Every structure is written in C-alpha cells, then in structure tokens.
C-alpha cells in the first residue's frame, strides 16, 4: 500500500423506519456533519466525496448523487458513486480508503445512505419483469432456502437463529442510534413471533430503515494529527462471484471464503479468532451469523453455530459479534455495510459507548450483497500496520 489511511471521523444519523423530519439532503448531511464534527474538520478540508447506496429505485432518482453531492460540499471536487448491491456501504468505504491509500487525496468524505420510506423495499427489490413470473418473495424469499440448506448440512440446533436474534436485539439497546429496540425482548418472544419465510421468523429478520453513515478517511499525516484516536486501516478486500452457475455453493460462497482469507493475509493475521478482538458483520437474517462465522474462518465448516451456542459471539464472549445490534436492528440498506465498517472503527477508537468492547485493538468490518455473491471487508486497528 502506497500510503497508510485511517478513519478520523465517524457520523451516523439516528435510524428509524421513517425519517419524515428530513429530506434525502437532510439525511446525508446529518451523517456528514456528525463525521466532520468528530474529525474536527470543515467542508473545505475535504478533497473528494464518495457516495454509496443500493438501487436507485428505492428513492426513484437516477444517480441521486448528482443532486446530493453539492450538499456534501462536492462542488469543484471529485465525486464517485459506488453500487455493489448490499455490500455497497462496505465497498464505498473501501473506494474512499483507496483514494487516500493511492496518495491521490489526503482527506476524503464518504457517505452511504438509504431512505427506504420513500417507497417500498419489497417492491424495489423484486421488480416484476416481463416473461418471468416472480416467485422469490423479496430478500427473505431468496435467503430462507439457503438457511434451510445450512441447517440441513450443519445439523445446527433449530433455536440457533433465535439465540442470535436475542443477542443482537439486546446489544441494540446499548446503541443510541439503533432503529429497532425491544426493551423487553425474550427468547420466547422471538420464538413465538410469526414465521414469515419458514424457517425465518419475524424477529429473526431486519427492519427497513431510513438512515445514513459517513466516514472521514485521512492519510498518515492526518491520522497522526487527529485530535481523537484514529482507526488505522490495515487491509481491505472485495470479492465477487456470479449469482447463478452450475455447481455454485450458495450457502458457503467461495467469494466470501477467499475474500476473508486474503484479507487476513494482507493484514498479517494468521489466527483470526485469536487476533481479532471483535467483528461487526452483515447479518440481515439471524442464521447468517453462524454461516458467516464459518465463511470468515472463525469456526470450522458446519460448526459456526457452536460459537453462538457457547456465547463466544456475545459482548462478553471471546469474539464479540455485532456489538451495535447489527443489521437485525438497523437496516438502511445502502448504509448497512458502512455502518458495519464504522462500528469496527468505533471499537478500536474506543468510542462505542455502552457497547464498547474493553481493549478492542483490532476489529473486522464485513458486508455482503446480491445473492451472497458480493463481499467487502476491512480490518482496522488502534495502531498503523507495522
């Protein structure tokens, strides 16, 4: 890597089902202003802007970054718009980091957002095309069969998903910006919630949220000069495989296995379970926690569920996962990947408040999208990589 890069400012909006108090402009500015304030910087200090979001049909604006970029002080600056399906928030952060790592820019502002309340996610995600009867009912309809495949091959106990959901919902209570908060949530409440896409229950799924996340990424000079601790980016990686091809393992996609393997190599990590202090990963349906524990090489194949069962992924476990309450609690789709990356950075900066993991020095941020085919990840730490 030509240059070190570090997260020097983080801002998230308050997330809610309908942020009717703000326009799209107000939403992204709320995140960006919080990130700039955190970095103690002004609009003029920013060299370039990178915007990410999921499909334009959510808001009904083609390339909305064109009208939004000027609200981010983008006039006269370079602006990029990234779209890599559900992984986009992560990929967007990676593109922003690369603008700094390349030595082209010193300080970059990146924002990912979604204002899902402007339309309907189920509509925007499953647009009916001619000649093709729609049979897959939104994201749940796509992912539920993969979860059943995982249950069959791993033999995981049926309540694994409920345990994940309970943990994440309890974690969300400690996160002031989280969307869905259920103060009296219990195992039974989740277990008794309606089956939507059998085997996925209502409380094992993510909500639809409005919200945005912003990061300021600086080079080594600005990372060292920052008034608050910086989160140093040790490695980033992205991997893609096609949606449907003969012989594809959709449950345990090779793109994810290879993405994390290469990521650890770049970051000099040989034993991820031991060397990584906490992980914030993209779990839109509870069962994806055990699946991704395996895909991320934290657990042997077919044994990821044991980590959930043993409490390893709890806040007091040996590898806390989704300290923020995760996607299960907050899901503004385009922003969700960046929120994962931001949470990892907050942990190593020691700024995660009630959901802070004591002594977190190295953390993983993870996002995925499409039909479990797009992966983006980063490792951040409290010190620059040696």
């Amino acid at each position, binding site marked *: *890597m030509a240059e070190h890069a570090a997260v020097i400012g983080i801002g998230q909006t308050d997330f809610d089902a309908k942020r009717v108090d703000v326009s799209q402009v107000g939403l992204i500015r709320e995140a960006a202003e919080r990130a700039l304030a955190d970095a103690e910087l002004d609009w003029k200090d920013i060299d370039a802007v990178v915007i990410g979001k999921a*499909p334009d049909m959510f808001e009904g604006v083609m390339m909305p970054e064109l009208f939004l970029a000027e609200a981010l002080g983008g006039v006269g600056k370079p602006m990029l718009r990234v779209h890599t399906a559900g992984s986009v928030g992560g990929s967007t952060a990676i593109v922003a980091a690369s603008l700094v790592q390349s030595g082209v820019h010193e300080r970059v502002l990146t924002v990912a957002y979604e204002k899902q309340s402007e339309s309907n996610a189920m509509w925007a995600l499953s647009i009916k095309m001619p000649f093709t009867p729609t049979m897959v009912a939104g994201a749940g309809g796509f992912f539920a069969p993969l979860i059943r495949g995982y249950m069959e091959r791993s033999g995981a106990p049926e309540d694994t998903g409920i345990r994940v959901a309970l943990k994440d919902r309890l974690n969300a209570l400690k996160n002031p910006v989280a969307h869905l908060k259920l103060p009296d949530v219990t195992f039974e409440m989740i277990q008794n919630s309606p089956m939507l896409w059998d085997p996925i229950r209502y409380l094992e799924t993510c909500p639809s949220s409005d919200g945005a996340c912003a990061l300021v990424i600086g080079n080594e000079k600005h990372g060292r000069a920052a008034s608050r601790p910086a989160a140093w980016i040790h490695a980033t990686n*992205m991997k893609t495989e096609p949606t449907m091809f003969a012989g594809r393992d959709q449950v345990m996609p*090779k793109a994810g296995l290879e993405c994390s393997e290469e990521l650890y190599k770049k970051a000099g990590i040989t034993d991820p379970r031991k060397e990584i202090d906490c992980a914030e990963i993209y779990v839109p349906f509870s069962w994806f926690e055990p699946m991704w524990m395996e895909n991320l090489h934290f657990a042997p194949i077919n044994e990821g569920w044991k980590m959930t069962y043993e409490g390893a992924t709890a806040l007091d476990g040996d590898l806390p996962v989704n300290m923020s309450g995760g996607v299960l609690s907050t899901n503004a789709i385009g922003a969700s990947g960046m929120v994962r990356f931001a949470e990892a950075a907050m942990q190593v900066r020691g700024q995660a408040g009630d959901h802070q993991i004591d002594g977190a020095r190295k953390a993983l941020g993870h996002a995925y999208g499409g039909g479990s085919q797009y992966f983006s990840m980063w490792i951040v730490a409290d010190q620059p990589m040696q």
Partner: protein
Amino acid sequence: MRDVAVIAYAQTPYVRTERVRNEVEMLMPIIDEVVKKAGIPRQEIGFTCSGSTDYLAGQSFSFVMAVDAVGAWPPIMESHVEMDGAWALYEAWIKIQCGEVDSALIFSFGRSSMGETAETMTLQTDPYTMAPLGPDAISMAALQARCGLDAGLFSERDMAEVAARNRRNALTNPEAQLAGEFDVEALLAAPYRVSPLRDHDCPPVTDGAAAMVIAAADVARDVSDKPVWIRGIDHRLDSHQLGSRDLTKSPSTRLAGERAGVSPGKIDIAELHAPFSHQEIILKNALGLDDDVRINPSGGALAANPIMSAGLARIGEASRQISGGAASRAVAHATSGPCLQQNLVCVLEG
C-alpha cells in the same frame, strides 16, 4: 504515481436498437476480445470494475447479471459504479495506484432503446423542485445552448458545423451509428426540435457496450507493443441546480483538465463527450484547446451516444488513435448529469 497504460480496447458496433442480444450477450464477445488483445490470462487480471445504471435496464441490480459475462470464477476482485464506464476506469486506475493490483478490466453497457431516453434522464434531476416538471434531456440542453447563443459565444451555424464535422468524421468509424456528409445550410433550414436545438444538435439513441484493459508499466510493457499511457486523469463536479450555474462555462471540466495536465504540451486530438453540439464548443473552451486540435475523429457522441459507455468510449477511441499512430498526445473527456454537470478528463500519450 505509477505509470498506467491502456493496453486493449473493444466496443460493440453502435446501433439504434439492440433487439436481439441482452446485456450479457452484448458484453461477452467484447470482454473476450479485450482480454485476448491484452494478452493477460483472464485469471491474472487483478481487478474488474464496471459502470452502468439500473434505470436504463428498468430493473434493480441490473449490473449483477453483467457479472455473468466476465468469468468471475474463481471469484474476482470487482466493483461497480452507477456512473459512466469512464469513472469505472478511474476507480481501477486508483486501485493500481494503491499498488494492490497491476492490471484491471473495465466495462460498461446500456440499452437506451428500451426506454424513452430523454425522459428517463428527467429522473436525474432534483426530485423535489425539478423532476415533477418533467424537464427532459433535450430541453435542459436547449436551455444551456440558449445561454451560449445569447452570450454570443457561438451561433446556430457554429453548432451545425460541429454536427456536420462529427458525422463526417464518423464515416471512417465502422462502429459509429450516424455518419454522413451533411450540408450546413440544409441543416440550418430544418425546423427546431426544442429551440434552439435542431435534430442535428442532438445525439442519437444508441445501444452499446465497451470494454478496456489497463495495466501498470511493468505488465504493460511486457504484454503490449504499443501501450497508451494515462498521463493524467481527474474528474470534478459542478452544482446541480441549472439556475445557480453559468451554463456557458464548464468550470469542472476546466479544473479537471488542469489537474490531468492537458497543458502544457501539444494536443493532437481530443475525444470530447459532448452529446449536444454546443457542448463541444463549451468543452473546447474549458480545456483551452487550440483550433488545430482535431476534435472527435471517431464522430463523438453526436455519431453514437451509448449512455454509460459514451465516456469510456472517448478514452478508448483516443487510445486507438494513438496506438494506430494517428496521434501522439490526446485528451479524452467524459460527462455525466444535466448540462455537463460532472466531467472527467484523461490525458493520453503514446
């Protein structure tokens, strides 16, 4: 900065309506062609980046399907911008600058003909105060042309001459869509489409795709006899609200041109992404190009305007001119957004 070169470029023939092939079927042959030309085994290309937009295809996640045309198995390091392929090239160039990879495949595609392109572009405008009034792409460009005419920066005759020259140039480009000899007097006698624009001032609706391979110096010299070097690349943005801009100028193009290093040094040719005739004149001024610079030898966007590929195609066409020996230094430009809102400038040398 690492030296990076264009080592291969290919595009589909540009047509009004690609009714037979879908996007994947359009892309497969040109990706195959460009990878073969590049001489780098497909699995060794370090990064892939594409540019497209869902609203041309009429479906969410339309770029996901395009991955089928790449051969992403084993999995590849890949990204996508919801922008013209020229910005996909920029992201790939950055990735090479990071030292992470030494080569990259870039592609972009779109079938404009499936929709009403001019109206689809309305959706690019501010959704609160502009889009509800339905300003189409031609009407917005016409507002810009009027500003330049009123300011005396160019005449309708100048605009017709731009159109005639581009379409004459296109006669030598077998992949162009609209080519021919046009008499300026006859063009000026035609009625207005949306005044002050006539049909000849507007781009054709075009379906098409483009693909490119770039590589860092070591690889480029190894696999290519005639690498075309990217000497500078930069892109900038102007305000979105038409009423808060001086539409007769393109400050973002000027700035990007300065950063990319257009001057000093003689420019032989320029490939400018000017979908409307008057925009070529605005861009030429913004880049400070002399009158002896040959503009759009390919015919430019007035001869074929494959939305999402037209910008990448300018860089591809300029690189062809250099590798073919017709030029030694060229500037290529891409634009996005209403009335040249966002602009990318790339300086290429043999």
